[in-house]
């Protein structure tokens, strides 16, 4: 009896909150151009960052600080999961081997999936998507391997080291920007050295965006697979 009362009460509360939010959103009409800073970005993205994809330019260059924070969040997630599920010795819990279709399929697909992931984050500044989606696709490759084989384990010692190295790489890129351009995360390749000004829209353009996205791609790939690895294992009672 109590739960019915509780449910109805919840519904009423949520409806009122919903009405309130709707009233708030009514002031922000859908579909109208509400941009202020957005126009500046759209007008100047090409010559200031050399990237065609405005979102990537904003994510890496204009608001690079967010992404730095963003990478840290994911790093914290993987360390946190690692810390929480930590056991002295762990082994896989999978019992049944993948079916023939799955195992052979994975053997065939894994390299291509990884390649496609690499493609996404290398062309971040040109095509939609960037470091994060690229990294995620690589992680799916490893997930595929986990599902197919009961004994397969990612080399998590090496992965942790790559995570650390790549993270440091990102910060060092920022520090180089500070050293050269005087500002932390300053795109010294595009601004000071002026490489790739002529071939906007092609691969070697967009300042340090590709470099950062490669670093992010690797980092996200290793982290997500690390999380998957931690979750798919169980502690061994010695």
């Amino acid at each position: 009896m109590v739960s019915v009362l509780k449910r109805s009460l919840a519904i009423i509360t949520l409806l009122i909150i919903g009405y309130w939010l709707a009233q708030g959103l009514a002031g922000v009409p859908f579909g109208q151009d509400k941009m202020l800073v957005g126009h500046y970005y759209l007008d100047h993205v090409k010559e200031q960052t050399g990237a065609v994809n405005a979102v990537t330019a904003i994510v890496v260059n204009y608001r690079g600080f967010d992404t730095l924070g963003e990478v840290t969040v994911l790093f914290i997630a993987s360390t946190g999961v690692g810390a929480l599920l930590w056991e002295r010795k762990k082994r896989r819990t999978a019992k049944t081997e993948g079916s023939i279709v799955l195992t052979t399929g994975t053997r065939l697909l894994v390299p291509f999936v990884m390649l496609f992931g690499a493609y996404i984050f290398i062309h971040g500044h040109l095509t939609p998507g960037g470091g994060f989606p690229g990294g995620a696709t690589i992680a799916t490759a490893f997930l595929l391997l986990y599902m197919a084989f009961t004994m397969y384990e990612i080399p998590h010692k090496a992965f942790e080291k790559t995570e650390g190295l790549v993270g440091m790489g990102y910060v060092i890129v920022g520090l180089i920007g500070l050293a050269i351009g005087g500002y932390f995360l300053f795109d010294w390749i595009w601004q000071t050295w002026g490489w790739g000004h002529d071939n906007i829209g092609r691969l070697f353009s967009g300042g340090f965006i590709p470099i950062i996205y490669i670093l992010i791609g690797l980092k996200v790939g290793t982290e997500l697979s690390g999380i998957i690895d931690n979750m798919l294992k169980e502690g061994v009672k010695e």
Partner: protein
Amino acid sequence: MSVPNISAFYFGAISLILIGLYAVLVKKNILKMLIGLSIMETGVNLLLISIGYISGKSAPILSEGIEPNQAVDPIPQALVLTAIVIGVATTAMTLSAAIVLYKHYGTLNVEEIRRLRG
């Protein structure tokens, strides 16, 4: 007290948020609450994106054909990119905490997990 006429996308986003909150408020099982939490996060992300949309304009990839004034607002899309990853991080953390919890308590029912109180 007129019913505010908001577009379908806002309506969709708000209802997703409310459904997520409903799950957290009512469901007894911890996992269901976590699912509710991630629904809410997706609802928020949808809201964030739909605020940035300008009807009749295309994605902010300024390849040859698209002029700056034809692109949608890029900032919310950048923000959502970060928000999604944060959503992933929070869900990963909550799930691992739930795993540890289950190992120690043997149950996922919210009523029983009350050792720390008062």
